[in-house]
């Protein structure tokens, strides 16, 4: 269970990221990015990488 310090840390990181990248999104770039992405992700031969099933198990251990 998280203590309050953890929550504050997570929140600081999230706030920082919002401030840092909102310059891109605020003006609508996030919406513009979307059409670029599916073209890559949707076509099976276009995108190089996909994840397989055992990634779930890996996430649970979460260490390199």
């Amino acid at each position, binding site marked *: 269970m998280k203590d309050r310090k953890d929550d504050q840390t997570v929140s600081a990181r999230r706030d920082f990221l919002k401030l840092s990248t909102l310059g891109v999104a605020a003006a609508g770039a996030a919406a513009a990015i979307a059409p670029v992405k599916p073209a890559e992700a949707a076509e099976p031969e276009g995108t190089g990488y996909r994840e397989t099933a055992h990634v779930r198990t890996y996430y649970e251990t979460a260490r*390199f």
Partner: protein
Amino acid sequence: MSANAGSLKQHEATAAEEDLLRAGVYDVLASVFRREPDAGFLSDLQRLQGDDTPIGQAFAALAARAGSIDPTAARHEYGDLFIGLGRGELVPYGSYYLTGFLNEKPLAVLRDDMARLGIVRQEGVAEPEDHIASLCEMMAGLIRGRFLEPAPVKLQRAFFERHLAPWAGHFFSDVEAAKSADLYRPAGTIGRLFMEIETAAFAMEE
């Protein structure tokens, strides 16, 4: 295994706003550096916008250049920068940046991590996995949990610190400074600034 579209949509809907932004920036970088641009991609890029923050300005600059450059010139620029005769002005592979050679140990370490993460290449992709576009694609996939749940920040950070942080900032700076760069100059700026943002944000996790 690929999950169905429904669960992907669910994850997209529940992912935090800033994570979708991060994944979006990685997607743009992956798309830009993956292959030579065609007219359709240049027209996609023209829709990018940004505010007056440094990274926002770089997005706006990329959109503007995508709108003014001749598609043939854009294709040639990509070739001069990253392909060349023998090699381009820059070599966008982690192994090359870290060791001076392609296919060295950093690639082996990446392949090992990919195997453990369950990330596999589509058949028919021949280029080494440590291409900058591939690494950006993998980061976006980890953040989005493209087929399963999003990877924890701790895992994203470990992947970033091992495979991008040691060289990606240098690479993007080199793109900004490259003789042949015009369209790609603001893309280099976006990459450099975004690597700084990611580094600073991950450091807040401590």
